């Protein structure tokens, strides 16, 4: 089960929107910082394909400026 964590940077002034967008997505858990414009994103998907699709969907979000991966674990 791929488990990944990222630092997600929102577009300018779109932090709240990004939190909302990511929280509503399946397999995602969001930990926003309260004094910086950055969030921690945890993804926990059942298989590699779902994970790939999820990441691509996230990258399409308007509210997201960039996503940097910090930690990745797959079961292979």
């Amino acid at each position, binding site marked *: 089960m791929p488990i990944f964590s990222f*630092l997600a940077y929102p577009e300018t002034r779109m932090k709240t929107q990004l939190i909302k967008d990511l929280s509503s997505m399946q397999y995602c858990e969001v*930990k926003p*910082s309260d*004094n910086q414009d*950055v969030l921690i994103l945890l993804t926990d998907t059942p298989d590699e394909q779902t994970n790939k699709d999820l990441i691509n969907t996230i990258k399409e979000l308007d509210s997201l400026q960039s996503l940097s991966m910090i930690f990745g674990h797959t079961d292979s």
Partner: protein
Amino acid sequence: MTITRRNFIRSMALNSAAIAAATMFPGISFASWKPIDLPAGSIQWSKTPCRFCGTGCGLLVGVSGEKAVAVKGDPNCSVNKGLCCVKGYHSVQILYGKDRFKTAYVRKNGKMVPTPIKEALDLVAKQMKASIDEKGKDAVSIYGSGQWSIPDGYAASKFFKGCIGTNNVEANARLCMASAVTGCLTTFGLDEPMGCYEDIDNADVFITWGNNMAEMHPVLFSRMLANRKSKTDVKIIDLTTRSTRSSLAADKSIIFNPQSDLAIANAICHEIIKNNWVNQDFVTKHVSFHKGKTNIGYGTEDHFKFKDKQENVDFEAFKTFLADYTPEIAEKISGVSAEDIKYLAALYGDPEKKVTSFWTMGMNQHTRGTWINNLVYNIHLLTGKISSPGNSPFSLTGQPSACGTVREVGTLTHKLPHGVVMKEGARKMAAKIWGVPASNIDPKPTYHTVEMFRALDRGDINFMWIQVTNPMVTMPNLRRYRDGAKKDGRFIVVSEIYPTPTSDVADVILPSALWVEREGFFGNSERRTQHNDQLVPKPGEAMCNTWQLIEVARRMGFEKQFPWSQETYIEDIWNEYTKFHDTPKHRMAPYKVLKARSGVQWPYVDGKETRWRYNGKYDPACKDDTFDFYGKPDHRAWIWLRPYEPAAESPDREYPFWLNTGRVLEHWHTGSMTRRIPILHKAVPESYVEINPEDAKDMGLVNDSKVKISSRRGSLVMKASINGRGNPPKGMVFVPFFDESYLINEVTLDAFCPISKQPDYKKCAVKLEKV
């Protein structure tokens, strides 16, 4: 993938991200989420009294799964109203030190061997029987604690006094509160303060006599600060032998020579009479005058005996007596200017000002502790400032249940739960409630604490059971008593939670349940009893102290007196114990009420707490609605004519410094619990000796310089602390006693107040040498 492994990887993922974020954004905060994986399930909050000082704050302990994970102040507890101090906030961490005792240990061939607890209990009973058979019932003894819960002390008293029939029952409260007890008994006939903490919210003037409330009773100190801030013209006066954090907060700090508090108190009375500030009406109706023996000694010899003799006198005799204590004479003795003494007298004497006096160890750990307690009561009695909101001579307790257990249950050599062993009526009452023949209870007290350890050293006692205290760090003149305990033929049983210098000398170590691992009761300074349920499981074979006593008592043949089951024994004990106090002067709240509420004061009469005793407006035990000091046969409070007498050992040419000992905020007593709390240990990791900056300069010392402190009894090398939180005056040094690597009590002197038998830890003579 199992669920726990998945959780582990998830938490690793989250924590890595948190660390990366922190690296890139200094000061980043995720305040709404703590990167710690809490076990599944929500937190359950339950009330308990705090494990530490005599303030007796109410806490809410948060339990998640089976672990205590967090602490909040209990907003329903009137003592602290939701606030704690740093020790209280981290108190749950005392349960989880790595070297916790989880099984019993028995000494075999010099080594401590882990042993199942049942076997260890068998051995304890066997040794007790052997000691009694060989040398009689007074060969066995128990040394308990003001940190005993009430059922612990009750079981010990019933077992040793009622069943075995020995008065060798003592507790470490002898070393902390005995002078307060004898002060109350000689002045009022009944023990414990007559006021309550509400006095703090009502007073206009606070005078602290030799205590450091900012560090030792911090939550009460905060209440004083809040009072001062909320009103104009509230004053806090710090009367002290050493400058502390409390001194820095006070409006005025007055430094006096050690022991001269006796002269100052008398001088204040002198001024009050001279300026006609006496409340004549009160004194005529409610006070009588008495004097006792003088030149009463210091107790440093074995078998020291003292019995006071009282003599009725009158107000005129009191005035004549005080002629020797003018402010000018007191100035010579104390180093406090006559002007300052008159200032204090004016504060006490002002009829518009409500005055609360606080004291703890400065007045109690004193070779004339009973006398100085009497003298501060004298000031309040002369002015009638007593037993009403804000007017309060208030003796603060050090330990969480020195009042609740030692004083109220009576775990001292001469006491019973009601009355004293010397009185037949009290013996008969105890025998009836305990279900033992009245002839079992010995009418003669045996040893107070210091004398009991001397008896152990001499061999008159060869079995001692030590529970919830650390005498091998805290006995004054320690070397003698530690060597005494280690002699051949002595059998020492220690009920403990962590390895300490006391468990190091034990023949049997019994693992004890700690605080919220067992149901129990504590009683704090303001007569408030607080109950806690068991909130977390006991580790390993740990057993509640009460149950340890019951198990051994049963093995000694006393099943009839200890019939209770493990499910209900605490409630059963409470119901039996409260029978002793069933009068309006001392009635205790029933079990159900204590279980439900965050603390209930006694006397608890008809569903109401008596907040101010001896005042008919608040106390139903009074005969009318004015003052009635019903503890004394003449229904009056007694003013005692007590003189100034010098300390047992004052500085001289060879040993030119006073040695003063005490505590710091972060550490509790000998540190066996608080040093295992990371944040507290990290704040104060090591003990030190406070030296006055000028003295330090004369000796070429700077901070952390090594200094050898020597007295006629022992010596120690310690690091100097200069200009820290406490600043002794020239000619005095101060050492906190929480660090078992620096046994400062090897240097102190076992002189005590002949009336209370409480040792003086604040005054002996030492010399300093730079190392």
